[in-house]
């Protein structure tokens, strides 16, 4: 028995040795990327990068781990880093990059940054996440924003609606839709969707300065203020305009409701564009893109970045090639046209983009200049995850589903939770 076990073990080892890591060669011309862009549309966008690198002679080793906001991927990344085996780069969201930088796991590409003057073309707010102590260790490929509404044009024309400019107009429009027998808002009742919508409601209720004070500065008086309570009340008002089955619905099923004309509009980030595109719908003709009523002039953003890890010297050249490729204006344009977002570089020409994309690019430039370019609380770009996807999501979803009953309670819970999470 023991002999058989030994034989089996050595047979296995022999087989395994065949798969053992290749011995080190000089300059491995391969980029290993961890990401969670596994759907057809997103993968097509990432493919732009892969093909560009292929032209430069670099192979692409894909490490995809699916899952919403990258939860599973981040676990895998933690494990890889703990094992001493980090990828060349990883898709990553703001604060996680800061964590890894603080732990000393990231490398820097300052020479490249200086040569191409990234400091000037990347919005200042983003640089908080892409640089640590002035060193560039993460590169952004796009900018998404969450304060959009996506409207079915046919339904809008039928009810005689126009672009709502503030929250009261918004409610009036929704009433019109309800009277006409159409579902006013298509919502997927998942915590992140509700929180993302709340970002826009807060911005609409209190304006960009209030948003910054409450969510970026975590000023307690702002968080406890009547304005915040009003924001929660406004959110509660929106509950009256949903269909009864919204709980747990995936976001793209909600978008499908708008595309089909069962619902008037959806409050969602601009990745919703990908759904419309996949259904062969055109902006201006089939659907309309407006900023969430009362937030025009501001951009609540989240961005996808690639964190660059400390790797062995023979992988460095590939890493630099990746950084260079990501920041290349043509790559950024092609990538973002497919993905529905806006390039991270503000100097990329908008010729290839459709109507909504052009508006997006213009809005980012303007907001960056005015200082109304703020991170989304729901997407972990205003505060670290313990507060963002943690406390914020908890309080908003509990309020939305009735476990927290009043806006006074909600505000109190929010403040309490943030204190505990600090």
């Amino acid at each position, binding site marked *: *028995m*023991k002999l058989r*076990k030994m034989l*089996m073990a050595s047979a*296995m*080892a022999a*087989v*395994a*040795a065949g*798969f*053992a*890591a290749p*011995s080190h060669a000089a300059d491995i011309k391969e980029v*290993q990327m*961890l*990401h*969670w*862009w*596994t*759907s*057809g*549309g*997103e*993968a097509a966008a*990432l*493919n732009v990068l*892969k093909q560009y690198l292929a032209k430069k002679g670099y192979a*692409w*080793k*894909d*490490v*995809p*781990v*699916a*899952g*919403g*906001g*990258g939860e*599973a*991927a981040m*676990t*895998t990344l*933690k*494990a*890889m880093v*703990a*094992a*001493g*085996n980090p990828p060349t780069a990883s898709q990553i969201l703001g604060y996680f990059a800061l964590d890894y930088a603080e732990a000393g796991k990231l490398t820097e590409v300052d020479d490249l940054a200086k040569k191409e003057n990234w400091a000037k073309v990347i919005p200042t707010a983003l640089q908080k996440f892409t640089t640590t102590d002035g060193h560039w260790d993460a590169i952004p490929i796009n900018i998404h924003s969450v304060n959009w509404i996506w409207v079915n044009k046919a339904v809008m024309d039928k009810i005689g609606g126009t672009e709502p400019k503030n929250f009261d107009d918004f409610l009036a429009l929704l009433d019109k839709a309800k009277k006409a027998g159409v579902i006013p808002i298509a919502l997927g009742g998942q915590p992140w969707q509700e929180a993302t919508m709340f970002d826009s409601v807060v911005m609409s209720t209190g304006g960009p300065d209030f948003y910054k004070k409450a969510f970026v500065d975590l000023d307690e008086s702002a968080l406890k203020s009547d304005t915040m309570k009003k924001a929660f009340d406004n959110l509660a008002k929106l509950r009256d305009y949903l269909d009864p089955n919204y709980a747990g619905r*995936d976001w*793209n*099923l909600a978008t*499908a409701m708008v595309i089909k004309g069962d619902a008037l509009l959806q409050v969602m980030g601009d*990745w919703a564009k*990908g*759904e419309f595109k*996949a259904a062969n719908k055109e902006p201006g003709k089939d659907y309309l893109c407006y900023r969430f009523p009362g937030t025009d002039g501001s951009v609540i953003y989240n961005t996808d970045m690639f964190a660059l890890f400390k790797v062995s010297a023979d992988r460095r050249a590939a890493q630099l090639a990746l950084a260079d490729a990501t920041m290349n204006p043509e790559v950024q344009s092609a990538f973002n046209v497919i993905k*529905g977002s806006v390039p991270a570089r503000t100097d990329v020409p908008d010729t290839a983009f459709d109507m909504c994309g052009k508006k997006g690019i213009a809005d980012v430039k303007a907001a960056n200049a005015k200082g109304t370019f703020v991170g989304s609380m729901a997407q972990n770009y205003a505060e670290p995850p313990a507060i963002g996807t943690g406390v914020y999501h908890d309080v908003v979803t509990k309020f939305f589903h009735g476990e927290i009953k009043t806006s006074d309670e909600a505000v109190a819970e929010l403040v309490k939770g943030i204190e505990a999470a600090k």
Partner: protein
Amino acid sequence: MTAVDALRAAPVREPTRHSTTTRVVIYGLLTVFAVVYLLPLVVMVMTSLKPLDEVTGGNMFYAPKDLTFEPWSKAWGTACVGLTCDGIKGYFWNSIKMVVPAVIISTLLGALNGYVLTKWRFPAHKLVFGMMLFACFIPFQSVLIPMATILGKLGEFGRSLDDSIGFSFGFGNPTVNLVLVHVVYGLGFTTLFFRNYYEAFPTELIRAAMIDGAGFFRIFRRILLPSSGPIIIVTVIYQFTNIWNDFLFGATFAAGESSPMTVALYNIVNTSTGVIEYNVNMATAIIAAGPTLLVYVVAGRYFVRGLMAGAVKG
């Protein structure tokens, strides 16, 4: 071996006679249950044979109007897992490479452990068994990071072996890592199953064999193993299913091209900001469940043979 053979003659249970009404009730209940159990599978299969607009637009209980096998061919050969669009077939093989050794090793170790704990007792045997049992309850999330660190060190060790003697013994290879992880965390269960089974095994046979001059391994090989059919089946079913369907360890320790099929399935089924192709997802899920289903059908036959001592009883 005649002493053994004599003792092995098992009394077979005779069929119980039931009245007709009882039989009707029994068959009726079984059929109702069967329908309930099958319904989700029927829906899944039907969904996988419909084109996408029929899935999202229609009723899930209706048979496909536009029968198509395209989702299946896509799932196997062209569905996109990240940037590679080769379907699930490659990852299938990764899973098999990992599951087969893991199941064999953990089952074997479980059998040996059960044998030792019941037939070669030592003073602390109940404590040892209890400790191994309690190991079944470890929350997997808390082992991810420490395990990753240890696997990383093993990988370094493997690389240094590779550099010095040109042979790394598989240390650091993701598939080998997964086998190690699954063996370790399956030991509690396999030991549990075999230990309970062997507990009921008459010790007269063992004694007789010892008198005949057999040693530790020979007793195991010649007496216990041949009668272990049912419990080997139960253990293999359990281990195969758990390891084949594991996602957490596969995603954390073997992401990328060595990832098992569950990770690929998850990647195909879960998209964050893209179109959900329910029909392809269902087809992929059914393909993914294929080998396990095969194991159940094949192994199921052995359940009929009521061998000597009880399967999982004590």
